């Protein structure tokens, strides 16, 4: 049974604390969704779990099946079963999609073993078809010149090929038109099984029309400030986030406010917190 445990996670980038105590457990078979306004730390959480070198964990733990993820390098995390469908995946000129994914699959095998070429091609072509991507995809360079939607589909294609234990999909729905959203949503749903833990980061209810979530969390100021069922999403969709902000007593939900940082954090927030106590 796969299990990802995030406990009181704090992380910073360039000296700014972005994650301020995130606690979340995802079990195999469960689908969680994280929603939240821009700049509240959602992508940062995903990056920290995957091990992006820019972020520094200052407190807390991440465990995958009981193993300390924070001690693993990015590639070890991936081979241990973590997958992150990125909000903005890199472009890698000169490296074809198929070479890349083949190398990634080989990396999961024992030393010296390789994926069978024929089986690989069959599996890849099938995934390309299921995602309704263009047939020259295997020979195109990794994400280079891809449209926003193509990049997102390519992330899902990689997930299909790599069959992770825990998959985090960061805004896999943004930049997709209605048809593409349906395709991506249905493909993700078809991958669900009782060993796969899914974490969807999204701004829109419409993704969850295709991928049912068991639990919904709302992120603000680098914390999960509210958790519940699908009903939260419906309300967010209709009313926005104000009601949650009021509930938890937050005025500015961003981790790093755009305006004068110090003035806002020390002035407004401190007062608010005091009042709501």
């Amino acid at each position, binding site marked *: 049974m796969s299990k990802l445990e995030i406990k009181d996670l704090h992380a910073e980038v360039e000296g700014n604390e972005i994650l301020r105590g995130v606690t979340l457990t995802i079990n195999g078979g469960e689908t969680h969704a994280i929603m939240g306004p821009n700049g509240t730390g959602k992508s940062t959480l995903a990056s920290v779990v995957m091990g992006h070198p820019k972020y520094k964990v200052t407190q807390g733990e991440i465990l995958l099946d009981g193993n300390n993820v924070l001690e693993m390098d990015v590639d070890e995390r991936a081979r241990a079963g973590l997958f992150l469908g990125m909000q903005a995946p*890199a472009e890698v000129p000169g490296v074809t999609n198929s070479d890349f994914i083949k190398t990634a699959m080989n990396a999961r095998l024992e030393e010296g073993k390789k994926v069978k070429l024929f089986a690989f091609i069959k599996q890849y072509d099938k995934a390309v078809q299921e995602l309704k991507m263009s047939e020259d995809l295997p020979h195109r360079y990794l994400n280079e010149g891809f449209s926003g939607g193509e990049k997102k589909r390519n992330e899902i294609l990689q997930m299909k090929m790599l069959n992770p234990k825990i998959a985090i999909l960061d805004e896999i729905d943004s930049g997709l038109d209605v048809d593409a959203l349906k395709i991506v949503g249905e493909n993700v749903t078809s991958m669900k099984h009782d060993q796969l833990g899914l974490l969807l980061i999204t701004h829109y209810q419409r993704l969850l029309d295709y991928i049912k979530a068991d639990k919904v969390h709302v992120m603000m100021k680098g914390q999960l400030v509210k958790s519940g069922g699908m009903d939260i999403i419906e309300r967010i969709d209709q009313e926005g986030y104000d009601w949650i902000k009021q509930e938890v007593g937050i005025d500015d939900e961003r981790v790093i406010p755009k305006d004068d940082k110090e003035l806002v954090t020390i002035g407004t927030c401190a007062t608010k917190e005091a009042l709501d106590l």
Partner: protein
Amino acid sequence: MVTYTKNPLINDTIPKTIESLIADDISHYLVIKDGHILAKDIDIEGLYIDNFDNALSDKIDVIQKIDDTKTDVSDAFKYVKENATSGIFVHVQKNTVIEPPLHVFVLQEEHDMVHNTIVVCDENSQLNYMEYYQNEQPSSNNIVNQAIVNENAKLTYTTMNLFTQKSVLDVNRQGLVKRYGTLTFNNAEVSDALSNVNTVVKLVAPYAKSYVKTVAITNQQQEARFEQLVEHLAQYTEGYIENYGVSSDTSALVFEGVGKIHKNMKHSIARQQNRGIVLSRKARLDANPLLLIDEYDVIASHGAAIGKIDEEQLYYLMSRGLTKRNAERLIINGFLNPILDALSSDKLKTLFIDSVARKTQDL
């Protein structure tokens, strides 16, 4: 004028590495070692290819004409012309289009290499010519490659060099392109030698075009310098210079590309692009793209982008389970990909990729 004396051949066996390159993968090849042709399997109508022994009598009229057009040349160039011990002459007749690529393996075993290749493409002809250079032991290697592209002819002249450590390599390439002619000079440089490769292309008539593409990898204490000068000596000429470099360990790699548009050579285009990856803190990679333009009505651009391996690319590949080393390999190979298309057989491509891997193994 060429003067030419051959050294005696000590050992007439073709090295195993070359045998395996030729085996089933390559047709239309010639192997020349220390100036002596060891194997030749090229018989195409309208094409003359031979060593200087025969060419200097068979084709002396054509060769003499070339020397008449030659202008300012370096001492190294003159040295090879006067002291060549190995020479290949290629002549494509008028209106002859040669589809299959030719492969010439130029080898050094006993003596220092002083080699001269001359390729002449006559009016409306086309040729894809690939030269592979290798030495068996440390040596000093002086090479002149000359390309004459006559009216409306197209020549792609690709070289791949694999010289050993402690060798010295001095290459002078010179191209002359006439009206509507196109010359492409590709260079895949995976030598371990102390290298100096100097390329001069003269676009001497309107609509002449040239592409000079260099891919080089340096490692350990290697130093390599690549200079390209494309001279626009007529209106409506186009010159493109592209350099891709990877330097690792404590090596130093330099690209000095110059696009020079002379006065009145209106409507010409000179473009240059340099890209580089520096793999270690002590490695150096310098690109000094230069435009010398004495005319307003032209299009010109130059740029250089040099840095470490992109951190986001590395993270992305590793996030799919590739080890850091494999991810770096893939990124470097992808980066050098522009030259792979120019290598005319799968075995040569593999040899290139393996050589890159060898030269970047200490990452």
